[in-house]
């Protein structure tokens, strides 16, 4: 490894969220390096909206995201598996209703 590259001096990582159109929610599109929030927005504009992909950008420092631990998946997500009654599938929907 090149000793001149000091990983501690790299720009922080930002997670980028783009809203494709008014009314939709912001979706995660990727991450990039920037030295501050404003630069993150500008980089995101150049990287992720070149082809009119969006109308709004959110940038969040990756370190500020608290993630669930994959090892906890058993206790977090497994218990929902056998509770099918939580799905709203036990209602009779009139045939005339198309868009529900």
């Amino acid at each position, binding site marked *: 490894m090149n000793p001149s590259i000091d990983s501690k001096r790299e*720009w922080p990582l930002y997670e980028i969220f783009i809203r494709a159109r008014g009314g939709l929610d912001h979706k995660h599109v990727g991450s990039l*390096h920037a030295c501050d929030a404003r630069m993150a927005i*500008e980089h995101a*504009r150049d990287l992720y909206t070149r082809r009119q992909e969006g109308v709004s950008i959110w940038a969040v420092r990756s370190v500020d995201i608290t993630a669930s631990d994959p090892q906890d998946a058993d206790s977090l997500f497994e218990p929902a598996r056998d509770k099918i009654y939580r799905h709203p599938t036990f209602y009779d929907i009139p045939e005339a209703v198309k868009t529900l």
Partner: protein
Amino acid sequence: MSALRYVLRLGDLSLVLGQRLGEWIGHAPVLEEDLGLANIALDLIGQARLLLAYAGEIEGRGRSEDEIAFFRQHSEYLNPTLVEQPNGDFGETIVRQVLIDAFQLELYERLAVSSDERLAAIAAKAVKETRYHLRYSSSWLVRLGDGTQESHARVQASLDRLWPFTVELFEEDDLDREMAEQSIAPRLADVRVGWSKRIDEVLAEATLDRPRERPYSWFGKRGQHSEHLGYILAEMQHLQRAYPGARW
């Protein structure tokens, strides 16, 4: 043919600057900036296409924008000398960019109400792009100017070196006066007031000193260029001159 020369001045500014910025592709300090500079370069080439195509129509000899770009000589190019200056380090490119972005923005805002409808439409489109260019370049200038001792000293030195080239931007000659009288172009004195205000604001935020005015002798906009333009044209025009009409 005054209008033709005026439109060439605008188009050549965008073309030469776009070509210069394109030299950064693959060489910028980080990947994100590589794309940032390439986007600006492409915006400028896009502006140049519209302007040079219009110049071709005014000229009336059936030349396309490509022919005008690739088959004119050094002294037929009418861009201001500032935009042909070498990229230098990233900081010097940013300084050049701030100086010219602020100029283009003030100019395009006024050209958007030009009596020449075609020019007004091109300016109205370009003004949105240019507003972003200035946002990008000035935020970098603030970061570098108000950054470390090293970055501050380097961008201040670049500013001192490039500053004399800004004189030409506002030096009103017969062509500029004629365009202003026909309400095709704004008075350069008015553009200068707006430019100066923007530059003072960004320099203050970047903790940089505005250099003193110095005498100046290049007039690229009249075809009297620095030695650098020749190298740019040699690279840009080589393919079309070696293989006229080549397409891909």
